[in-house]
Structure formats: C-alpha cells, structure tokens
C-alpha cells in the first residue's frame, strides 16, 4: 500500500489538509504520536479574534472566520463580538496604532465610546481608557477539535492512526515512515507536527528554525453571567470569554515551563498569577470565581512569526505546514490552501515559503 500523501501530525493543520487532499481524490493517511487534535489544536484558548491577528495574515484570518462559522455548533462556535481594552495612555496609543492598521487590512474594527462599552459589558472595570470592538470576533471550543476532525476523517473515509509516532523517515522512490505500528509508504509527505516540526524535519537532515512557546490557559467554575463577548487587552496579554455553560476561559499567551521534547509543559505560578490579576483587573467580579484548572500547550513559531507553508527545503515531495500565529483561527483555511498546493492547484491566497530567509523580513 502506497499512500498518495502521508500526513504527520493530526492537529488542525494536518486534519484540515487531509480533508482537502481526499476531496481532491488523493488517498491519504494521518499519523499522530498521541490522539488526534490533542496538541495545540485541542488545548488552545479557542479565541477567534481579528483584533489579535497580524496585519499581513488578516485576509487568511477573515477566511478562517468564515470556515469556523460554517463548522458551527459541532465545534462550539459562537460569534459574540469582542472588545480590546487599554488601561493607560501608553496602551491606548498602542491600541490606536495597531487597530487602525488591522482595520485597513480588512478587519471590521471600530473604536467605541465609554458608554457603548459599558452597555456592551457592564461588569468591566471603570479603568478603561480606550476600547476597540470587532463584531466578527468570537470563539470556538478547542477541546472539541479532536472529536470534530476525527468524525470528519471517518466520514471522508480517511485513514488515521493514533499513538503512532513517526521516528524515522527514509526516502528512495517513495517515503518510508517508521512508526510503532509498522512502516508507512507514501509518495508525498506533509509535516504538520506543530511544535515538534524541528525534530521531525531533522529526521531528513533539514533544519527548520522552529521555536516553541508554552502558552497557559486557565478555566474557572461555572459563574453567573459576567461577560457576553470576547475580552482582550491592548498588549494581547489577556483574552477571556464566558462559555455558554458559565465557565470562564482565561488566556493571553503567558509562558509556562517545559519543552515539546520533554513531552509535557508545566504551569508556572509566576506567570499564571499576573494573567489572572489582569483578568480580575478587567472584570473585578471575577475575583470570587474558583479556578478549576490551568494547563499549557506548545505553540510553534519561526523567527519572523509568519507561517511555514510550502515545500520542505531540499526534499522533493515533502511539504510542511505549521507555525501559524493565530493558527487555530487560520488553520481550517490555510490547510485548504496547503491541500490545493499539494494537489497541484493554484492556492487562492499565497503560501509562505519554508525556505525563505527568516531574518530579512521577506514576507
């Protein structure tokens, strides 16, 4: 059995690409070292916010939002709108500069008055100096990612293997992948291993300058309604929302401990505390909510913080997709582009050459 494409990594990038490739008639298999969708794609904060997307990625994020809306209830999608807050003059200036550029890039972001803000979110602190609003913002439930894509792969008749780590890659006529469940042969491979891309590419002696961040997320017990939109901070150091069941999810990219190679990250009290302090500062009534769980996930990036999406440098037939900032939001869309590219079609929007010079600002 020789697959047309073997996809290494069953996160949102790998699963999304698999679906596109199968639609295009390819026979594909998805391999994951753990369970599908339990990496970054299953533990992220689920914020779908145009306000925190990079300017040059805005067209992808807008398309991504449309994909999430279409997935709807099955992924816990909610379009709630979202506010981004500034608590002092410095942050207000930052907010002004950033949101203006993002609005120019196509995001429907507007600045709101204090009264509008208070109408929208009465439980916010009085300390807000300036706030922007985007009606397109919302969230999905990341813990449903695995379940959702697993169902989609099954419906599409796509093979997948869990607890199936790729430990060696050989290349002669085809690719031969060594796994605990036997050798997998494929004409092409797509590396979609998230924060593990570096060791994976190293199996083929390709150096990808991938670094991992250890982001932290915290959830509270169920609370009476405290907020109805996604609330963020001008620096990006706070995102929070209250789910339909009343629990509050608090994130903002605060760093935990550990590395992907060690297997698991650890929460650091030193960073959780300011994250929670910032949340409570924004919505003082949060103080009484009991914290039930904090966890970490590994998010990958390269030095210029733009995606890797294209041909793995120097290896014909090998592709890579990952390191997308705001990758949960953009994942369902950019994985379609990747699928199209592998199928030999012209992608609707340009991809991001993994062979670029990351220092030069070539994007």
């Amino acid at each position: 059995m020789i697959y047309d494409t073997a996809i290494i990594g069953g996160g949102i990038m790998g699963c999304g690409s698999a679906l596109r490739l199968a639609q295009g008639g390819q026979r594909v298999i998805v391999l994951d070292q753990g369970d599908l969708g339990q990496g970054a794609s299953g533990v992220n904060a689920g914020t779908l916010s145009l306000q925190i997307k990079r300017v040059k990625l805005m067209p992808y994020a807008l398309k991504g939002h449309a994909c999430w809306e279409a997935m709807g209830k099955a992924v816990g999608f909610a379009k709630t709108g979202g506010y981004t807050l500034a608590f002092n003059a410095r942050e207000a200036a930052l907010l002004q500069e950033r949101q203006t550029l993002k609005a120019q890039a196509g995001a429907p972001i507007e600045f709101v008055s204090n009264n509008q803000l208070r109408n929208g979110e009465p439980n916010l602190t009085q300390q807000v100096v300036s706030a922007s609003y985007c009606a397109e913002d919302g969230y999905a439930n990341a813990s449903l990612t695995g379940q959702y894509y697993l169902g989609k792969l099954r419906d599409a008749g796509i093979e997948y293997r869990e607890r199936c780590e790729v430990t060696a890659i050989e290349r002669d006529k085809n690719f031969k992948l060594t796994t605990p469940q036997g050798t997998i042969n494929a004409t092409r491979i797509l590396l979609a291993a998230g924060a593990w891309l570096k060791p994976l590419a190293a199996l083929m002696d390709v150096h990808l300058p991938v670094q991992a961040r250890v982001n932290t997320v915290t959830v509270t017990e169920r609370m009476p309604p405290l907020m109805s939109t996604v609330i963020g901070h001008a620096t990006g150091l706070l995102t929070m929302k209250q789910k339909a069941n009343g629990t509050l999810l608090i994130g903002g990219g605060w760093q935990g401990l550990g590395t992907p190679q060690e297997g698991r990250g650890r929460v650091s009290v030193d960073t959780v505390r300011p994250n929670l302090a910032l949340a409570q500062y924004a919505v003082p009534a949060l103080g009484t909510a009991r914290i039930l769980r904090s966890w970490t996930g590994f998010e990958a990036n390269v030095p210029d913080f733009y995606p890797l999406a294209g041909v793995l440098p120097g290896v014909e037939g090998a592709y890579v997709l990952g390191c997308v900032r705001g990758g949960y939001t953009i994942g369902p869309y950019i994985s379609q582009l990747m699928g199209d590219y592998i199928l030999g079609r012209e992608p609707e929007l340009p991809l991001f050459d993994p062979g670029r010079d990351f220092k030069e600002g070539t994007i």
Partner: protein
Amino acid sequence: MSDRFDIIVVGGGPSGARAALAASAQGLNVALIDEQSAIGGQVWRAKNASILSAPKTHETRAGDALRRDVLASDITHIEGARVWQIETGWTLHVLRKDVSSELTCKSLVLATGAREYVQPVPGWTTSGVLGLAGATALFKQSLTPPGKRTIVSGTGPLVFFVASEIRRLGGEVAAVVTPNSRRDWMRALPSMLGRPALLMRGAIWVADLMLAGVPIYWQRVVTDVSGDDQVRGVSIAKLDQNWARTSEDIMLAADSLCLGNGLIPNIEAAHMLGVPIRHDHALGGWIPETTEDGGTSIDRLYLCGDGTGIRGAEAAAHQGTLTGLCAAADLGHGTVNLQKQAKAKWLKSARFGMTMTALSIPRVGQAQLTTPETIVCRCENVTRATIEAELNAGAQSSNAIKSGSRAGMGPCGGKFCATAIAQLIAQQSGAPVANIPPATPRPPLRPVPLSIAAGSFDYDALPIPKPAPL
C-alpha cells in the same frame, strides 16, 4: 512562623504524621500541612469539639495518640491548610483562612492518602446515598448515623465496620450487601491469622450484626437506587465469580444507602510533579513509582501512605516512619538501624493491608452495573451513554473522552469518574485498564478563588512583556 523548612509533609494522616515525627526526631525543622482541622487523616479523624465526651473507639484512641505525639514534638503543624500548587525545588502555595502563602523546603514528602471509589449505578446520585468510607467520616466527626434505616453495601472489611458503627450510633441497618463471597473471606483468612487483634475486631462487627438479625447478602450487589428526592429503597442482585449479575433484582426498603467499592490512591500531586505512574490492581489502581523507602525519580521528593497504594492505616503509619527517616537521612540526619526496623514493620503490616485491598479489586462484571442512563461524571452530568457515543465516534483515551464529553472537567477534576471511564474504554477497546492511563492531571490541586490565586497586585507593576509582532 518561618516559611522555610527542611522538610514539609503534605497530609496529616497516619502516614504523613509519622513521617513528620520521624524526621523531626532526627533534629530537622519539619512542617506538617493538612486541610483538616486536626491530625488523623481519613482513618483517625478527630471528633468535633462538641462531642469529645463520646466513648472512645479504636480509631479515636489511635488518633489521639498520634495527635499527642505531634503536639509534643517540634513539628510546625499547619492545620486547615490546603496545598493548591507545588513547584519543583519546593515551593508550596498554601491556602488557609482565605489567605494564600508560600512555604519552601529542601525535601518534600507527599502523604495525600486515598479516596473512595463508587461504581455508578442508576440512582447513585440520589440524596441519602453516601460513600461507604465517606460515611465513616460522618460518624467520626459528628456521631450521627446516615438515616433511620440504612443499607450498607460494599467490598472488604469496611462494609462490616460501617454497619456496626451505624448500630452503635443508634441507627438501624436494613441489610448488609457485599459483592464478596464467604469464600473470598476464607481465602483472606490465613493472612488475617497473623493479625489476631484485627481479626477479632472484624469478628465482633459481624457477630454483632448477626445477633441483631441484620441480613447479610453475600455475593450480591446494589443494582439500582429508587427514590426521587430521597432514597426509598434499593434493588439488589446476585453476582457470579466475575461480579456479573446472575439473578433478578429484589427490592429492599431504606431511607439511606452507604455504597463503596474500595479505595483509590490520591496520586495527582505526585503525577503532576512528573513521577511516573503504573497500574497495579493489588494496590488500588494507578500508583506512583517509588522505591521501598519512599524515594522517587525526582530529587528530594518522597511519597508514603495510601497515596502509594492501598495498604491500610497501620502500614501507612510504618511506611511514614520509614519515609520520614529516609528523607532525613538524605539531608544528612539519621541512622540506618531505625530504617531497617521501620521497613520490617511496614512490610508485615502491608501484607495484611493488601489482603484487605484484594477484596475490593474490581472484577470484569462490575462495569455493567453502570447502565447507559447512569450518570458517570457527577460534576458535569455525563452519562455512560454519552461516553459510549464518544467511544463509538473514535475516542480512545481518557483525555479524548474528557475533551469530547466534558467528563472530568468539573470541580473534582475527574477524581471520581476516572476509574469508571477507564473501565468503559477498556471494555470497548478490549485493552486492559492498565493500558488506559488517567487524563493528564491539571493544577491547581484544589480549586482556589481567582482573587487568591492572583494575589495582591499593582497594575503598573504587572510584568507586561513586549507586545506580539504586529
């Protein structure tokens, strides 16, 4: 009070208290932290002050002795204090009277004990149903029986202890129901003969029940609890050797039910700190890997007591002494001789304890008691049918079930449903439960109010790193 210690022991049950005493006797500066208001743990829990005049039992005497020893020692006992987060190197975040403080130590001993497992059956969440072990806490603290007419159901010796306690406290025991057969007990007899005092206590419990005409239903199980707002009665059925039901149900009337299926080690703290875990039915399920004297793969982290495997109170105490001595020795205090003595005592009492644990080892038929409509995860109201739907949709692990169904996402953090969920996965996949580890444990160890976790802060002092790339 200083916040730096040579050794901090978490858990003031027989094991942790003995560990602290042993280390303190070697001249080390030791703190003993427990969330209860007095030393004693689950088994030797102290009575409420209002009922101190009540007659002494074996448990209160043992507990009083332990409390006296701690009082007479140099140990800093921090009571009513919840350890909610532990950082390697050792900093403990401790919540006490709505204030969180940080305590540090050179070596850490975790003696977090065990919790009860209840196999979910229809109606088990009805008001008037108590855990079998949980009921002992009620007796010890407040000397009240669970109701007017109680059915006591469960495995091992605890079921007889609880039934006789209810009678002693003036309650009526409608029936004792135990999955164990008389044959199970005959098999346990040889190792019980080595502990005549304990055997005697057990014999007295059973004799008391028989004299009072309390029916004992051997090799039977509670299959259903009826009653809307309050227990009205239970159905019971006969079991085969594998604890699969073999007969039609009969109904017994009662207003309360004590229900339990043995104990599970509390491993979350050790697991979170990175101690590898393994599955051992004979010790109550998943246990952290330790050396015999309580050492772990992590430098200066020690474990003892039922949290390392269910061996009972006496073994927990001896193991605590051994572990406390070893932790002290690793800090340069103490002798090998004492350790040898403690180890010999521990191994002897552990053998007896494990014989008792063996009576509660789950058997394959047990999982069937949880019917499709039965709630498995109480916190999030998730039924077996919902979990099975996830399994049929391809979920294969505890983590995947948790993400897809929310089972284990509530305030208890999955402590009470993990075993039942692993059983269901095992059944569906045909893999042994030993291949189905619990979901990744997440801090905090106990829920904490956000304001306390956040601590006091000044907005302008918040460490705000440089903003994300534009």
